[in-house]
């Protein structure tokens, strides 16, 4: 469990980006009532706990030329565990165009267990990717092309931590 100070730090950084200046945590520390060193210690501790994965830049993939994206769902239950592992690691996780990859509990009406988001430069590239990933083994799948982004925002952690 987290203490109040750690929660406050998480909530603060779920809303605030790191400033593009020499010492981006200086102002944040003042807002949080901590010294800069204390704040850095809390952040590093959260990283050691795995709650913070890293501090990184978020690229606008559309601006970077990745105009098409799709949610792809596979049914991997016909694969042996080692085959499934290889499929996920070698085909999906290691591909830099895949941003998200999850195992989910499938449901009647949507019988797939592995999901990934692919960012590509065209629909043809998405289809080619799916063809290549499923060529060796017959793996049932569906491609759900993104038509419109209706909501995308940073979630405040307030509701999640209290």
């Amino acid at each position: 469990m987290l203490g109040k100070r750690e929660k406050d730090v998480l909530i603060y950084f779920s809303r605030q980006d790191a400033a593009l200046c020499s010492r981006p945590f200086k102002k944040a520390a003042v807002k949080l009532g901590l010294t800069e060193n204390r704040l850095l210690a809390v952040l590093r501790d959260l990283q050691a706990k795995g709650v913070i994965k890293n501090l990184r830049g978020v690229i606008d993939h559309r601006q970077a030329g990745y105009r098409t994206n799709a949610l792809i769902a596979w049914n991997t239950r016909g694969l042996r565990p080692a085959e499934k592992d290889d499929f996920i690691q070698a085909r999906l996780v290691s591909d830099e165009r895949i941003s998200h990859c999850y195992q989910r509990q499938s449901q009647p009406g949507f019988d797939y267990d592995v999901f990934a988001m692919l960012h590509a430069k065209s629909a043809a590239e998405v289809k080619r990717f799916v063809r290549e990933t499923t060529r060796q083994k017959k793996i049932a799948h569906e491609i759900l092309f993104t038509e419109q982004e209706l909501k995308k925002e940073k979630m405040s952690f307030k509701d999640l931590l209290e």
Partner: protein
Amino acid sequence: MKTRYCLDENMNRLMLALQAGLPIAARPYQDLAADFGVSETEILRRLVWLKKQGLLKRINFSFDLSKLGVVSALVGCRIAGPDMGRAAKIIAACGQVTHNYARRHRLNMWFTISAASPRRLKEILTRLNSALPAEETVVLSTEKIYKLRFRFHAG
């Protein structure tokens, strides 16, 4: 419309380095500058430029809240064409929803939802379900995260 960039190799390397991650340090951009053999001021100048171009959206922390017991699910709904706008509004108003996309599929609206506990997730879903004009809904709870990362290069 200017959407494609041909960045020089240094800028591409910088974009990849940014996505790989910066140290949690008082001056995180200083290490980056050292890797590129330039001053911190010069690195900051390049970052401001990338941001101005719209290529760099932001620099912030990425989190794994599953470490704190937070649970999530992907929800797919079939919404009739005329109801799409209303459904999108209902979903947008839900604070626990981070993403919602219209997709080319029988299940044409997909959103992700997070909550502090499985019980809370169920409550939110029940509430959303009764408000949404959906003809069919599938709730796919997250069992395992294999990858959650963006790493793109331009050009």
